[in-house]
Each structure stands twice: as structure tokens, then as C-alpha cells.
């Protein structure tokens, strides 16, 4: 049963086997949680919102036309629900476009901070969580959820070009931390 595709599970649920939905929940709960945790910056809230997202997805399965992958559709629900939760955020594409030039600052130097002495991937993981939510969303969807830029653009309802801009900016900000703390010297 666990090797069934998302499509097959959804068909089974539509036929009345509602308990099969637990397979989809198990499949996407951790990645959905990672995304929400980085957007909402709060684990308890993220878990609560994730439950709501799964309920919305269940109730919307009837209208899910399978034109895109279930994962993309589900992460879109997660993203939109998180934005709703973060009240005051601008959701329209034009507003996202206008804020693409926003600059953000991460701590330049990790010395003296609790991050010192930790491995690079742990430090970077913590830095990702400090990024503004649209940047952390792109990083999480691209790397953790293993989505393509096209799928990320569909989930976030922005163009693929904008996804790449957000991705490059986030990477560059993290690259600056590596450079300023000479982490690359360890490899040389």
C-alpha cells in the first residue's frame, strides 16, 4: 500500500477509503512542517497550521483535478495558509515583484554567537530560518522539498524568473557568511 503513487491513493480516497489519506499525511507531513516552521518561525504554530492544511487538502480532494502534482498543490495550500496566518503580508504577484529588490541582512560574523563551533550545515540551516519568509520558502521548497523552480513558481504563484532571483539572492547571502567567516579555507 505504501508504494502507491499519490494519484492512486487519491483515487482510493475518492472511492470512499478515507483512511488511505493517512498515507498522504505520512508522506508530506515532515516536509510541510519544515516549510511552515521556516515561514512562521514557531514550531507549535507550524504544527497547528499544518493540521489545518491537511484538512483543507482533504476537503478539496474532490476538486483536485490532477493537472499538477499533488505535492505542488499541497505545498501551495501550505504556503497560502501560512501567508494568511502571517497577517499583513502582501500576497499578490505585483506586490511580490515590487519587494524582490528588498535587501536583508544576516549576521556577518558568527564569532561570539551561539553558532560558533557548529558545523557549517547546521549554521546555514539556522541562517535559512532567519531569512525573510519568501527566501526561506524558496530555499526550503527547492532543497528540502526537492521541487523544481517551475513547481516552486506554481506553489508560490510567482514567475519562474522570480523564483530564481529569490533563490540566487538567498544563496548569495549565505555565501557571504561563508566568505566572511572563511569557512571555504577549511576546504583548501
Amino acid at each position, binding site marked *: 500500500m505504501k508504494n502507491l503513487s499519490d494519484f492512486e491513493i487519491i483515487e482510493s480516497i475518492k472511492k470512499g477509503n478515507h483512511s488511505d489519506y493517512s498515507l498522504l499525511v505520512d508522506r508530506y507531513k515532515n516536509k510541510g512542517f519544515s516549510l511552515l516552521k521556516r515561514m512562521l518561525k514557531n514550531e507549535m504554530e507550524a504544527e497547528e497550521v*499544518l493540521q489545518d492544511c491537511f484538512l483543507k487538502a482533504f476537503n478539496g480532494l474532490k476538486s483536485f483535478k490532477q493537472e499538477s502534482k499533488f505535492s505542488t498543490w499541497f505545498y501551495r495550500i501550505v504556503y497560502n495558509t501560512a501567508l494568511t496566518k502571517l497577517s499583513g503580508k502582501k500576497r499578490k504577484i505585483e506586490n511580490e515583484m515590487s519587494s524582490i529588490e528588498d535587501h536583508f541582512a544576516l549576521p556577518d560574523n558568527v564569532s561570539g554567537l551561539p553558532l560558533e563551533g557548529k558545523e557549517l550545515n547546521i549554521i546555514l540551516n539556522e541562517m535559512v530560518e532567519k531569512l525573510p519568509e519568501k527566501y526561506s520558502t524558496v530555499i526550503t521548497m527547492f532543497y528540502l522539498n526537492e521541487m523544481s523552480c517551475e513547481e516552486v513558481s506554481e506553489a508560490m504563484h510567482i514567475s519562474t524568473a522570480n523564483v530564481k532571483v529569490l533563490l540566487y539572492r538567498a544563496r548569495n547571502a549565505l555565501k557571504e557568511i561563508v566568505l566572511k567567516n572563511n569557512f571555504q579555507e577549511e576546504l583548501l
Partner: protein
Amino acid sequence: MNYTDEILNKYIDGELSGDELSLLKDELAASEDLQKKLIALKMVHSSLKGIPEDVLSSDFTSKVMAKISTPLKARKEDKYFFILISSIFGLIFSAVIIYMIYGMLNNSSAESSGSFITGLFDSMSDYLSGLKNIFAEKNLTLIGSISSFALLISGYFFFEGFKTSKRF
């Protein structure tokens, strides 16, 4: 984000054309600073690939399934309740009809003169007179209350059924 940063990111994603790749290699050979940037970007890229997945509590799935099955159970119970009420009303209605037919048959057999159909019509007019008495002024308030109550119950079940069909 300057031109070089964009080129380096495209290189990481394997999106450079042959000419661009060749140009970048020439620039890398000439610039130690650019080499450091590329190494740093590669480190970021590989570290981000290795970000550990967050793990939720083991009972998360059961919590979600419980929230899903509770409304489904409630909808099933609503459905059975609706069927029960409809059945009761149906039985009452059937009993009234059977009683009327029984009365008509009795009247038509007691009055042996005349055709069966005439007797049936006579019984019908007796019942209509009886109905007229029921809807007399003094009984109107009671009839109105019962009708309003029946309408409210029907409206509630219709609305609930409509909501249920919309939900799934």
C-alpha cells in the same frame, strides 16, 4: 546581485551555455577572488542539500485523521437521523391514507345501494367536511404551529444536506 553572482549561480544549477562556461573558466583562471566565491557558493549549495528534514511527533497523523473522521461520523449520524424522521413521517402519512381508504370501503359497503364509485365520492366529501372542521378558526393556531415546526425541521435538514454535499 551582480552579473558574476548570477553567472556563478547558473553554473551551480548547470544552466550555462557552452560559450558562457568557457568564459567563466577563463575568468576563474584569472581571479583567485572569483575562485573563492565559487567554492563558497558550492559549499552553500551542498550544505543546503543536506539540511535535515524536520520530524513531527508520531501521533500527528492520528490527530489529523481524528479531525477528519469526526465530521464524517457526524454526517453519517445526521443521515441516519434524517432517514429515521422521514420514515416516521412516511408511516404516519401511510397510516392516515390506509385509515381513509378503510373508512371509505366501510362506508361504501354499508351503503349497499348505488355504485361503489358514488359511495367513494360520498366518503371523500365526508372527510373533506371533517378537514374543514380541523381548519376551523379555533384550530387554525394549532395547525399553523404544527406546520411552522414541520417547515423548520425540513428546512434544517435541507440546509444540512446541502452543506454536506458542498463539503465533499
